[in-house]
């Protein structure tokens, strides 16, 4: 039965919201920081506890918020038994870790950062276990990879930490990518991305031909996350993390995510041969191999890491068996492993913290010096060994029972024997943990004098150790209901298999296997020293070396590709780009069909033909004469002019106006720039290169011409009829192009003026930086040729431009005002007035004009954008969408009736930005000239005839 409850969303969000707290609270001290970190976790735990009774009754709590329904992605959460178990573990252990870390971390460690990462991780992990949508689950899955990367690499100064974090991220991240593929396939098979739907479609999924790829991809994700062979190598390297992280991520939560996923998907994917052989075999190998390596590790945390690998293998194997009973046993062992392994990690952390070493060979005899730690560690380790009265015994016994009844291939004994071997090794390393750390004689060469830590540090592991014992003695009463409801969720409902959680099952095969394991383990421990020597003498493949070599090869290959393509030669990139475009264009042309031409070609009158010849000749001349820069610049002006004429002829008066004014400004700009650049381009490219470029250019030109010609002869459906029909009624203007700019597509225009404004500011900033650097010195040393003109500001030009100035401004204003109804508008007006001002600059020089300027161009750009933006926002005040235009007609005698439209204010903004940006660009360039030692004139012209009159008067 499903129950809606919004608390789920709150639980999912709490850790992420809480992640903001530590960073703020760290200023109030470390204890305050830790306490406040605990609050969101505790709060989430309380909410979870409020939901728990419903779940324990077998109900499922759901909550869904639409996110991207088009992609099948919704923020859907659900909480069933399995989710409850994991969420409880994540939050509960999270609380303990918060407490433990407060005492573990030293004063130099940035604790606020640690808790922030921890809460982020907690949120991601929590998200995985309560997501109902597999796409959402994937997002959280990747988030755990990222946040665990931050946590593992928390001690940034340690190279092992950084390398371990990178390795963990590379392995789990790659697995996550594979899993995305698997999940998408799964979603496609079922037709829904919601887990609740997927879990009921197990039959259809297993029957699908896509089952195997989906299974393999999803398992890749799960195996990498849960450190299954052959991906087990990252986990020990991740032990470079602070111990609280290891205890949290690598015993209780993150590495269990893979196991969780296999358990979650169990109803959908399990039960086939492929599942059994892939999952159970991997688990079995991992279990034995991990235990074997753990036995010979001297680093306490490495020992625990490999034992974790081994136990994860055990869980994987149980899930892989595919029987309902095995799945329930797996759930039970998840609980048990959590309690003893987290306690063990914390114990190892305490030992490390107090003795300053984790090397087992340097430890021993600590039971007298650290009695509390000894007690806690021993209880947990005995549980790990599977000794009766501790909880590890119960689930190990049930596991052995299951293994004894499993047939692999044709062999009925293989699994049982190997599982016993795994258990035996497990006993050996567990006892080694106790014997070599705590037992034995007290030594006098510990790096630091050991003693028990403060209460806050041993409280958390002690609590877990207490759980170990309580569950071990009264399993059915303490965790029975939880195992039942979580196990029920794993097997996907239906009848529960018969099992019983108790210490004494009678004389069973498992009991014999256990006895063999304990006895064999003790023997192995006794023989540890000689075995250790043998182990160290035998060469083994080192996973890290292989991994590093692999990474180096991949990095080398990608560097090779990058450097051959991306070698700093822009010409090469561009050539590659053009050739690629050509090939793609050719492919499209070759693959597509062509309809009949529907338009008759227009006639070509003689005037047009002359213009065309001029244009073509000019373009070719520019290309031929491009080494003589000044000449080519003059000729390119002809091109722009001819284009403007073409626009006029082809019914585009607005374009013609814009083109011709832009042309003017561009040429001025290039002329100014050319002043500082070399006047000639040297011959550098050989004939072959030129031929190649020519071929690329000719082919591209032909292609574009053919494309243009083809589509011009065919009709097209256009949305312009709407614009033509609504321009006057809706936009209040008869110049449709202008109405489109300021009204229909005003948002576009708004963006574009902002871009233009930014371009102006970029140029200004660039010049500013340049002139404050060493370039300024070089510029000051510029030597000018002696034969420069002495009359740089000629009288005729000064007078002419002075006369033209008001006229040009008039024209600009006129063009601006008529823009809405006749060709013109803000763009053109801005350019025209810029040109009027530029003429003053040219005639009378930079300094003279600048001294008479009363406003800053930056400000103009800013005001323009603000005016345009406010006009648009004004429409929102009136309850209409952004940039909706309003207009009305007014009549004041004796002036003729005229129209006022808000679009005009918008156009004013456009005008100001265009004007400001253009002027700012040219102003920046002319500053260069000033630095370069151009004489600064205070007079408007170099030779002023009125001076002579004045002089004569005085004389």
């Amino acid at each position: 039965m499903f129950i809606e409850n919004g608390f789920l969303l709150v639980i999912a969000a709490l850790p992420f919201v809480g992640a903001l707290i530590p960073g703020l609270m760290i200023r109030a001290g470390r204890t305050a920081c830790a306490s406040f970190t605990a609050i969101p976790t505790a709060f989430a735990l309380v909410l979870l506890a409020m939901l728990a009774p419903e779940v324990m009754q077998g109900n499922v709590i759901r909550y869904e918020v639409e996110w991207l329904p088009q992609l099948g992605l919704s923020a859907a959460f659900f909480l069933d038994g399995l989710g409850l178990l994991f969420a409880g573990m994540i939050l509960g252990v999270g609380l303990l870790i918060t407490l433990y870390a407060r005492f573990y971390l030293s004063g130099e460690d940035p604790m606020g950062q640690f808790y922030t990462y921890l809460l982020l991780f907690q949120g991601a992990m929590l998200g995985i276990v309560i997501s109902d949508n597999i796409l959402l689950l994937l997002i959280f899955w990747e988030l755990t990879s990222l946040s665990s990367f931050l946590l593992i690499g928390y001690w940034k100064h340690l190279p092992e930490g950084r390398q371990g974090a990178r390795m963990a991220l590379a392995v789990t991240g790659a697995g996550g990518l594979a899993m995305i593929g698997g999940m998408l396939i799964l979603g496609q098979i079922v037709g829904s991305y919601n887990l609740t739907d997927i879990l009921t479609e197990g039959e259809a999924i297993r029957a699908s031909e896509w089952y195997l790829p989906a299974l393999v991809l999803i398992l890749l994700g799960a195996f990498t996350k849960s450190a299954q062979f052959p991906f087990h190598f990252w986990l020990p390297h991740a032990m470079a993390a602070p111990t609280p992280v290891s205890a949290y991520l690598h015993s209780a939560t993150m590495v269990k995510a893979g196991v969780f996923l296999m358990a979650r998907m169990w109803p959908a994917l399990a039960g086939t041969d492929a599942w059994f052989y892939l999952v159970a075999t991997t688990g079995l190998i991992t279990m034995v191999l991990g235990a074997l390596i753990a036995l010979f590790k001297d680093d306490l945390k490495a020992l625990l890491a490999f034992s974790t690998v081994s136990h994860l293998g055990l869980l994987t194997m149980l899930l892989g068996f595919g029987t309902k009973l095995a799945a329930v046993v797996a759930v039970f062992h998840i609980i048990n492993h959590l309690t003893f392994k987290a306690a063990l990690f914390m114990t190892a952390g305490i030992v490390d913290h107090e003795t300053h070493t984790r090397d087992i060979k340097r430890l021993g005899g600590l039971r007298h010096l650290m009695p509390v730690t000894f007690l806690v560690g021993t209880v947990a380790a005995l549980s790990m060994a599977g000794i009766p009265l501790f909880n590890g015994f119960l689930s190990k016994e049930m596991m052995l029972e299951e293994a004894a009844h499993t047939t692999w291939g044709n062999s009925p004994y293989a699994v049982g024997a190997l599982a016993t071997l795994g258990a035996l090794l497990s006993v050996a390393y567990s006892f080694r943990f106790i014997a070599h750390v705590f037992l034995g004689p007290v030594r006098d060469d510990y790096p630091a004098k050991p003693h028990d830590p403060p209460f806050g540090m041993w409280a958390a592991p002690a609590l877990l150790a207490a759980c170990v014992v309580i569950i071990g003695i009264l399993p059915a009463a303490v965790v029975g209901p939880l195992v039942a409801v979580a196990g029920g969720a794993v097997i996907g409902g239906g009848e529960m298999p018969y099992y019983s959680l108790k210490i004494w099952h009678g004389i069973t095969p498992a009991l014999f296997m256990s006895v063999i394991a304990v006895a064999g383990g003790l023997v192995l421990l006794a023989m540890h020293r000689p075995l250790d020597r043998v182990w160290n003498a035998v060469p083994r493949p080192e996973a890290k070396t292989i991994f590093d070599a692999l990474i180096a090869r991949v990095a080398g290959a990608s560097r090779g590709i990058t450097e051959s393509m991306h070698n700093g030669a822009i010409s090469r990139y561009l050539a590659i780009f053009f050739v690629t475009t050509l090939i793609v264009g050719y492919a499209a042309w070759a693959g597509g069909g062509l309809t009949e031409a529907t338009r008759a070609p227009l006639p070509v009158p003689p005037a047009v033909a002359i213009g065309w010849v001029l244009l073509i000749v000019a373009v070719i001349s520019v290309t031929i004469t491009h080494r003589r820069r000044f000449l080519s610049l003059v000729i390119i002006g002809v091109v722009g002019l001819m284009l403007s004429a073409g626009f006029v002829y082809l019914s585009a008066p607005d374009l013609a106006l814009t083109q011709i004014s832009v042309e003017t400004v561009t040429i001025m700009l290039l002329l100014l720039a050319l002043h500082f650049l070399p006047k000639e381009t040297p011959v550098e490219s050989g004939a072959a290169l030129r031929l190649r470029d020519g071929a690329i250019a000719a082919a591209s030109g032909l292609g574009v011409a053919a494309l243009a010609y083809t589509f011009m002869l065919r009709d097209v459906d256009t949305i312009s009829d709407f614009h033509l029909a609504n321009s006057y009624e809706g936009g209040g203007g008869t110049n449709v192009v202008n109405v489109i700019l300021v009204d229909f597509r005003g948002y576009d225009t708004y963006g574009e003026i902002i871009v233009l404004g930014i371009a102006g500011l970029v140029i200004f900033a660039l010049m500013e930086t340049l002139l404050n650097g060493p370039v300024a010195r070089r510029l000051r040393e510029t030597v000018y040729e002696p034969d420069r003109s002495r009359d740089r500001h000629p009288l005729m030009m000064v007078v002419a431009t002075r006369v033209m100035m008001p006229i040009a401004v008039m024209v600009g204003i006129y063009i601006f005002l008529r823009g809405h109804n006749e060709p013109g508008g803000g763009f053109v007006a801005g350019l025209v007035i810029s040109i009027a001002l530029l003429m003053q600059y040219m005639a009378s020089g930079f300094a003279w004009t600048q001294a008479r300027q009363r406003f800053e161009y930056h400000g103009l750009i800013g005001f323009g954008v603000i005016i345009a933006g406010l006009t648009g926002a004004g429409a929102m005040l009136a309850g209409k969408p952004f940039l909706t235009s309003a207009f009305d007609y007014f009549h004041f005698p004796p002036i003729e009736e005229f129209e006022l439209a808000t679009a005009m204010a918008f156009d004013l903004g456009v005008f100001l930005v265009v004007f400001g940006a253009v002027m700012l660009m040219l102003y920046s360039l002319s500053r260069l000239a000033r630095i370069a030692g151009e004489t600064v004139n205070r007079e408007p012209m170099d030779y002023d005839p009125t001076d002579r009159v004045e002089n004569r008067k005085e004389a």
Partner: protein
Amino acid sequence: MEVVVASAVGVLTASGIYLVLRLRAFPVILGLALLSYAANVFLFASGRLAINMPPVLSKYGEASYTDPLPQALVLTAIVISFGMTAVLVMVALAAYLKAGSDAVNMGAPGTGAEDEEADS
């Protein structure tokens, strides 16, 4: 008329690309200017050609108009391409003033890149 426009676009594109592939900043800028002309005319032509049909609504009854939308798009494109050219000119100028060469490729003779490497 279509042939005229198409061939103009083609020649502009070809010259533009040829110049863009040169090794010095100034021809590259000229090439980009030619390419933007080509792109603008190409876009404009996508509204199909029409003579004496400017998209300015007539007060005197029915008339036919050319497609105004490409014109509006091209109008802003012209202004933006000016902005782009200007930024590019400045970058080229700054690079030239700093490095003493306006070669566009790294490591090309005279860019100073090799000297800096030798120094470090």
